[in-house]
């Protein structure tokens, strides 16, 4: 840890004295260095690349990708990357715009942009799309297929390994996809309604037949008003929904105010639990991995609405 800091500091001093040139010698067999923005993407890159890639996710647990603040180390991480993978579709806010422009100089891959627009959910007339593509596992697989091609193009010698691992990863995706489909279908029809703080689950809803209602819009930066609260409350009350959910990257008090309002109006609703939306759980926990995170969400939804 300390050693790491010293080396970082040293590298700055080197830079400051114009002695740049710690050219990263490109060893023939070194794994491909990939930097991703979110941990979901890192999970997929690892899934496909195995030990032939060295993946680093910039954004940790609980971080809202939209307002992520870049740190000093991130420059070197981005700089040293042989491939940068990000979500795109404005998930990463300002950083996404910069990454977009970086495409001229560096290998950059935007998962969302590689998908056909017809498969995406449009949110306005100007051509903007909902970025939360990882909650539709088939769509996420399609994004993964494009990523696979990109990785192969960069490391043709590892093509067969990538393909084998990708097939396994995709198979897991397909299996989980089928399970979600089945489980959600098992819910009573009037309970297939997902009420959360912000519109992160539109793809999930479209893919698995759940209606999705959020207090806030796509972006977590906008504020909701009393009218939005009223709208959501009316839906919850009129449909007899059993539970609503808080999200990992949104303050819980948003949904808590909805609950308190419902309770005070004599229509108590349970808090279904916490769903992961824009980020995953801490590394080292099951929720810190993509499949664990999706399963956590699924269980939480099932338990609350069954």
């Amino acid at each position: 840890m300390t050693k790491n800091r010293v080396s970082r500091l040293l590298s700055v001093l080197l830079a400051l004295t114009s002695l740049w040139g710690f050219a990263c010698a490109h060893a023939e067999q070194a794994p491909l260095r990939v930097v991703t923005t979110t941990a979901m993407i890192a999970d997929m890159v690892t899934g496909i690349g195995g030990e032939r890639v060295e993946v680093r996710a910039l954004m940790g647990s609980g971080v809202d990708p939209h307002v992520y603040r870049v740190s000093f180390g991130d420059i070197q991480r981005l700089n040293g990357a042989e491939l940068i993978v990000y979500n795109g579709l404005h998930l990463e806010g300002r950083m996404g715009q910069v990454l977009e422009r970086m495409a001229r100089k560096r290998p950059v891959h935007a998962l969302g942009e590689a998908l056909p627009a017809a498969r995406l959910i449009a949110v306005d007339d100007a051509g903007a799309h909902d970025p939360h593509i990882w909650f539709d596992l088939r769509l996420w697989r399609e994004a993964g297929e494009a990523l696979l091609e990109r990785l192969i193009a960069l490391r043709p010698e590892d093509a067969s390994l990538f393909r084998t691992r990708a097939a396994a990863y995709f198979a897991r995706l397909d299996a989980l996809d089928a399970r979600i489909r089945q489980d959600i279908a098992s819910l009573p029809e009037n309970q297939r309604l997902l009420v959360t703080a912000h519109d992160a689950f539109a793809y999930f809803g479209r893919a698995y037949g759940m209606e999705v209602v959020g207090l806030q819009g796509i972006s977590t930066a906008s504020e909701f008003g009393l009218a939005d609260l009223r709208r959501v409350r009316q839906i919850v009350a009129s449909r007899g929904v059993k539970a609503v959910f808080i999200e990992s990257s949104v303050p819980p008090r948003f949904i808590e105010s909805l609950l308190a309002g419902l309770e005070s109006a004599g229509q108590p609703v349970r808090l279904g639990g916490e769903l992961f939306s824009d980020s995953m759980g801490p590394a080292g926990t099951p929720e810190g991995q993509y499949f664990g995170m999706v399963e956590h969400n699924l269980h939480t939804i099932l338990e609350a609405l069954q």
Partner: protein
Amino acid sequence: MSAWDALFAFWRLDDPNVLWVTLGMALLGASSGLIGTFAVLEKRALLGDVLAHAALPGVTMAFFLFHTREPLVILLGAAAAGLLAWGLIDLLTRRARLRQDSALAIVLSLFFALGILQLTWLQRQPLANQAGLDKFLFGQAASLTDADLYLLGTVALGLILLTALLFDRLRLILFDRQHALALGVPVRRYELLLAAMLVCAVVIGLQLAGVVLMAALLLTPAATARLLSDRLRPMLFIAMTLGVLAGVTGANVSYLAPRMPTGPWMVVALSLFFIAALLLAPQRGLLPRALRQRSLRRRVEEENILRTLFKLHEETSVDTLWSQDDIRHHRPLGAARLNRILQRLHREGMLDGTPERMRLSAAGLKRATTLTRGHRLWETYLENRLGLSPERAHFAAEAAEHVLDEATCATIERELGRPSTDPHGRPIPERPDAAEAPSR
């Protein structure tokens, strides 16, 4: 639901969220309006802005130390940071003698940067639960619940009670710090108390209004009240009332249309109150002031012309018609300007004849006589150097009608023993009376 239905639905207040948000924002408006007035009068209008920004490192530090998002812990952290920031400002201005605005800018940016520094460091740590930490400083008024309401109510009530209890001391310190010190009032202790009150108001408002808008809730009602009154008690009352009104307006708008944030609308309402006061405030408003300036200018201009015409008439008779050139011969004025003044005098019935050839009407003659009489009496008085209270001259000057009223003229006349001519040998006219007006 139509807009009208929504409006009625709002005012039924049977929607618990609506009730909470309306009450809460009204309470927030009242407490920040109250305490902001003190900051503005201390000539530290932007202190609220600084303390709101300075809360960030308190939030991150509290989270870092206690690993919890528990609102009370976070609020206490923010309050501690606010007090520290106030202390640093005090240190920089009093001890290091930095300029006030520099000290504010320095503390604002330094504290905020410390917060960001810790945020970027935290987001790399394997800590769950940090989500929404940075959101703490963004307002989300609609998420206000009954629990917040108790806190808001307690703080608002506490602030109002404290202000009421300490009103005389606070007023003394605000208006004459030196005097308060001389009287042995522990000024520093009261200033610290005011700072603590301000920090309280800021901290409870942050989650609801956000950093920038919190600054407005503290400042704008106070600035508006300052325009409307010069006295502390009415100012506090006005600022609180405006805060409450704006809070209700913000809640109302946010109920009427989707995605309408309460806090910003509250600020817009406050700003509109401010603009209205700026334009219309009876004493300090731009419009009344411009009107007063204009009427003052017009009166002086008109009176000068009337006096000139009177002098011209004196040279001949009250029946002679004079041209604009004759007037300009005595009073160098632009032709267009003179024309405008003459037309006003015509409209007021002060002149007879046409705008080209004119003389004083009966009413005009009366007023010109009064003016000339005052003028010449004054001159005579100065010449004879006899005592007259200048305060009376001053009151006369301020009086809307004439510089010297008839009572003053009479006094001068009496004291001077009814002089008939002024120092230049010109006759001092008698007191004009309708009955005695010169007949034509």
